[in-house]
């Protein structure tokens, strides 16, 4: 009797054990993170941005930057709110220096470009404010990946839950001037960079333009300075030095 019971149980286990697996489906809660997007043929992830109103005309009082957020999981049939929280160390004030518009993943979507409006406040003429935004859990979406790394993560300093930006109205030496522009334009000066921006229309000094765009900027600036010198003599910078591109 005992043997029959044992054999019977074994048989039952064997019958039930060899079963075709059901399809595996995503069953976790959806989460959201700062994602990468296709741009100019490659994936591009923005973890920080330094914005300056310095090159904008006086009448420009606001500007908008967009940061892409993406979910893990499935799209939903309703809008889902993203919970952005400013780090305690942020001195940029929400509602004063900046405002996040519609922080949500729309219904049916897997990602969204979140608009952050930046305001040109008078105090920015001689200061720089910083905001470090962090995605936290909301009622609709959990906070997503909290990692840095090489491609495909594409984040070096801030995780995929974080986005840092600065706002100023000061004309500051671009952090990449020595590495990216020194060879073409020589030592930095305010007069020099304003001149180049005015003749080329280029103001995104923190970024690295594509080679053909860089060539255009350099050659246009060279020609403009040459023409200026032919008509007016040397262009003198704030330090009393002639502006030269070597």
């Amino acid at each position, binding site marked *: 009797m005992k043997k029959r019971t044992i054999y019977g149980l074994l048989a039952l286990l064997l*019958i039930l054990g060899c079963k075709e697996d059901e399809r595996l489906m995503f069953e976790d809660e959806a989460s959201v993170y700062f994602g990468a997007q296709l741009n100019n043929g490659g994936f591009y992830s923005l973890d920080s941005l330094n914005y300056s109103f310095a090159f904008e005309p006086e009448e420009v009082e606001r500007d908008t930057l967009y940061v892409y957020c993406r979910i893990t999981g499935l799209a939903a049939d309703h809008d889902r709110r993203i919970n952005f929280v400013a780090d305690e160390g942020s001195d940029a004030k929400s509602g004063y220096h900046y405002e996040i518009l519609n922080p949500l993943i729309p219904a049916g979507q897997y990602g969204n470009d979140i608009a952050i409006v930046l305001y040109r406040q008078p105090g920015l003429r001689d200061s720089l404010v910083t905001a470090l935004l962090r995605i936290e859990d909301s009622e609709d979406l959990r906070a997503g990946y909290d990692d840095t790394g090489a491609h495909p993560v594409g984040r070096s300093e801030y995780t995929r839950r974080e986005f840092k930006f600065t706002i100023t109205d000061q004309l500051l030496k671009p952090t990449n001037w020595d590495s990216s522009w020194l060879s073409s334009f020589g030592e930095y000066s305010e007069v020099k960079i304003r001149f180049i921006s005015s003749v080329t229309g280029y103001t995104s000094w923190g970024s690295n333009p*594509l080679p053909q765009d860089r060539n255009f900027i350099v050659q246009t600036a060279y*020609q403009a300075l040459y023409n200026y010198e032919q008509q007016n003599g040397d262009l003198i910078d704030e330090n009393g030095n002639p502006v030269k591109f070597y």
Partner: protein
Amino acid sequence: MLLFIMIGACTKDKNNFSYEEPITFDISDEEAPDVIEIGLGQRLHLSPNFDDSKGDYSYLWIAARNNSAVGYREPRDTLGREKELDTEISDFFILGEPYRLTFKVTDNKSGVSGFYFYDLRITNRYSEGWMVLEDKGGFADFSMLLPDTSVERDIYSLVNPNYAIAEPLMLSLSSGSVADDVSPTGRKLYLAGKRDAVELDPLTLQIRYNLDALYFVPPATKNLSFIGWSGTNLGVILNDGLLQANMTGGFPGAKKFGPSMQAPGVEYDYQIAPFTANVGEYDWRQHPVVYSHILYDQQNQRFYRTSGGSLDALPTNASNPSIFDMNDVGLGMKYMGTANVNNTHNAVMYDGAQPYLLQFSSLTTQGNPVITRMKQSMDAPYILDTEATNIASSSQSAHIFYGYENRLYRYGINANSTNQFHAFPAGEGIINMKFRAIDDNGREYGELLVATWDGRESKLYLFSVSLAGLVGEPSDAIAGFDKVLDMVYKGES
């Protein structure tokens, strides 16, 4: 009993084991070229090799556009259901577009299919031949001398009747495909006048862009002396003698021509001669330094190198000063063209009435940074008296061909001597000359196309040139052209 239960329990595991031999299809077609070029309205015959004696098969031929710029939902056309294909290229096909032709063989018993693919390119009568630029009352037009020596006349005005180009200057066709993310990737064809130019679709010959549209910001003045591509990654416009470049490469984004470049030490006080020396194929492991594009400053009598971002001097060690100094040549340039040694260039120079031949390479070699090869005074009568358009350097033998008045000459570089090999009738002066190397299924030879002008009419003559540089008798005259200003061969890139 347990064994039976175990076997029976696991029958729910849906596997796909099969112990039968898979059905294979051995399909080939050695006679078909890599890319079948065929025109609209022509008939396409294909006979793939497939042994159908041992089974029951059905066949299907389908064609679909194979352009990466379009999606995968392109319409398909069924061309046939027989083993051999015999079909007309209908208006389903679009001129200039690439197509993938699929030959599908299905085993009717098992339903398994095998496939064989062909690549098609839809061409027209203008796909190959000599394009001949003519001055028609001060406006540009071009005809084509086709491989069968027939002539299609006034093609530009026929295809583009509403955009005349005055003060015709030149035709230009890039040596290979250019990817600028503005036009479809392919060869660049320009028709230029001194004040304007157009980029043409190489197949349809329709205007794609005018000169202004080729620039990021069009220049205020236009005084062209050259437009074309040095290799396939440097577009060159010489405007007021200054270099305006378009640099392409593997990077994304639209690439267009920029403003004039400065030259080292002289800013904009230079004049580039209308010739480029670019690098062709080479083994990068053998050549540590490559000068992709070399140009000559006629005013300051020196060479520059450029990769598209700036004009630069060549390194001091690139020159053997006992031969000549690339940065300080001290001669005027008459002509520059490709020599018969890979990546080496012939430059016909002058000092007063004395011609010189300079030769230099685009490449250094291991342990040797010097690229200057030769400088010799030329025993080449009249070469400085003729126009640069009447000089043609051979890329197959150590010769330079040129014409003066009605006489054709061949200058032998090694012997430093010249012989006259042909004379046209008196009054029929040589006005243009081009050399092209031909590889006809392994048979290599050259072709010299010579244009003459007698004050009323231009005629063309074709000369066959052996690999040793021996020139045959000319073809019969091909007449009926207006004054020929330029000629360029359009064929497979």
